[in-house]
C-alpha cells in the first residue's frame, strides 16, 4: 500500500529540552497505527511536530511524498491532516454545532459541510441531541466526541489523536474506540497516541513504542501484545 505519512529522523523540543530525537515512522494509507509509551516519552511532541504546532528542529515529515515540515499548521491542516489534541481544546463558550462547523476550514470541506455534519451525527448520535448546548457544559466523553467530530469536519486523509481515552470512564472509552475503528474502516488513516497500551494495541494494526524520545520497538500490534517486555513494562504482568 502507498505510504501516506513518513516521518524521518524527527527531532523536536522546547527551549533547551529535546523531547523527541530521531523519531522515524511510516503510515500506509488506510492503516490504524498506535504510538504508545509512558508519560513524557515524547508522544504529544511528535504529534505537534507533525501538525506544525511545533517546528521540528531536524528531520523530515512527508505527506504523500511531499515535505510538510516547516509549513504553518493552517497549511498542514489544509493538506488533509486533522489533529484531535490532548485535552480536546474545544471552544467552551460556543455551541457543539459551532464547534463542529468551525472544523471545516478548507474550501472543499466547507462546500461539503452539511454532508459531513450528517456523517458525524450518524457516528455520534449523542452530539446531534446536544448540538445547541455549549461545549463547555458537556461531559468529558461528549467533549471528546465533539473534538473528534470537529477534526472529521475537515474531511482529513489522516487523523491524529492524542490520548482520546484520558480521564474517561472505561465504557465511554470502549464506545470511542469502536468509533475510531469505524472511522478507519471508512478510509481515514489513523495515528493514535495512547497511554492505555492494552486498548491501543487491541485496536490498532501496528504500533510503535516511544521511550525517552526515541522509537524502541515497532511491529504488528498482535505481536507486541504478546511481547514479554511490553507486558512487563506497560501491562503490569
Amino acid at each position, binding site marked *: 500500500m502507498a505510504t501516506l505519512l513518513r516521518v524521518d529522523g524527527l527531532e523536536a523540543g522546547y527551549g533547551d529540552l529535546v523531547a523527541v530525537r530521531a523519531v522515524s515512522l511510516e503510515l500506509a494509507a488506510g492503516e490504524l497505527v498506535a504510538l504508545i509509551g509512558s508519560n513524557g516519552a515524547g508522544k504529544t511532541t511528535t504529534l505537534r511536530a507533525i*501538525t506544525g*504546532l511545533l517546528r521540528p528542529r531536524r528531520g523530515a515529515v512527508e505527506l504523500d511524498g511531499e515535505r510538510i515540515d516547516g509549513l*504553518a*499548521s*493552517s497549511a*498542514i*491542516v*489544509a493538506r488533509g491532516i*486533522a*489533529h484531535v*489534541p490532548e485535552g480536546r*481544546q*474545544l*471552544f*467552551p*463558550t*460556543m455551541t457543539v454545532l*459551532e464547534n463542529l*462547523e*468551525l*472544523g471545516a*476550514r*478548507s474550501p472543499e470541506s*466547507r462546500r461539503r459541510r452539511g454532508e459531513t455534519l450528517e456523517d458525524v451525527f450518524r457516528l455520534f448520535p449523542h452530539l446531534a441531541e446536544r448540538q445547541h448546548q455549549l461545549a463547555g457544559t458537556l461531559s468529558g466523553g461528549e467533549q471528546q466526541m465533539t473534538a473528534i467530530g*470537529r*477534526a472529521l469536519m*475537515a474531511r482529513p486523509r489522516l487523523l491524529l489523536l492524542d490520548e482520546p481515552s484520558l480521564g474517561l470512564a472505561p465504557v465511554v472509552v470502549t464506545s470511542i474506540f469502536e468509533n475510531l475503528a469505524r472511522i478507519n474502516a471508512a478510509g481515514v488513516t489513523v495515528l493514535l497516541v495512547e497511554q492505555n497500551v492494552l486498548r491501543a494495541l487491541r485496536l490498532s494494526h501496528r504500533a510503535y513504542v516511544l521511550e525517552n524520545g526515541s522509537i524502541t520497538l515497532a511491529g504488528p500490534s498482535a505481536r507486541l501484545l504478546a511481547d514479554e517486555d511490553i507486558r512487563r513494562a506497560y501491562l503490569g504482568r
Partner: protein
Amino acid sequence: MAVGLTLIFGVMRVVNFAHGDMMVWGMYLAWVLSTRFGLDPYFGFVICAGVLFLVGVAVQRGLVDRILDAPHEMQILLMLGVALVLENSALMVFGPEPRRVRGVLRLSTIDVGPFIVDLARLVTFVVAVVLSVLLWAFLFKSDLGRTIRAAADNGYGALVIGTNVRRVYAVAFGIGAACVGAAGALVAPFLPFSPSAGLPASVTSFNIVIIGGMGSLPGAFFGGLLVSVAESLGAVFLRPSLKEVVSFSLLIVILLFRPAGLFGKRLS
C-alpha cells in the same frame, strides 16, 4: 469605542493603550473630511472606520504580532509607545488648538415631552447601537466572525483546527480600531478635541471595559451606558469637573462586589 477595546482584548489578550489616540485620529479624520471635502461626520464615519481598520491591521501585523508571546509588560510598553507616536504625530500635523467638527445637526433639538433632546447626540447614539448590533451579527452569524470568537475562546484550539491565527488577529485588531474610528467621527460633532484628548479617552474606555467585564461585548455596551449616565448625573448634581469622580467611584464599588466586572467571567 469600548466595544472595540473589548474585541481586541478578548481575542488577543492585548490591552490597546493606543485606543484613545486612535479615536482622536478618527476625530481629526472626520474634521478633515468635513472641512476640506464638506463631508458630514454622519457619513464620514464610514471612511474613518475604514482608514482606522487599515491602521489597526498595520499595527497588529507590524508590531503586536512580534510580541504576542512576550510578557505582558512588553505589550504595555509597546502600546504606550504607539499611543505616544499617534498623539505626537497628531500634534505635529494638526497643532495643539482644540477643534470641533460642525455637523449639519448642530444646535438642532427635538422636544420629547418635557425633555429637550440634542439631535446630534441622539443620532450618534442610534448609529452606535446599530453598529454594535451589526458587529454582534458579524461575530455570531458569519464564518469569519465565528472564527474570531473561537480564537478568543481558545487560541490554541483555533490553531489546532488549522486557523490562520495571524490573519484572524489582524482582522480582529482592525475591526477593534474601526469601531473606535467610527466612534471618534460620531462624537466629533459635540465633543471638542485636541491631540491630548487620547489618554483621557483611553482611561474612560478602560473604565467602561473593566466595569462591564473584560472580554465581554454586552459588558462593554452596558458598561458604556452606565458610565455615561453616571457621569452625566454627576455633572448635574455635583459639578461638571467632578463627573469622573462619580464614574471611577462606580468602578471601585463594582470591583469590590464583582471583581470580574458586571458581565465578566473569571479568567483562569
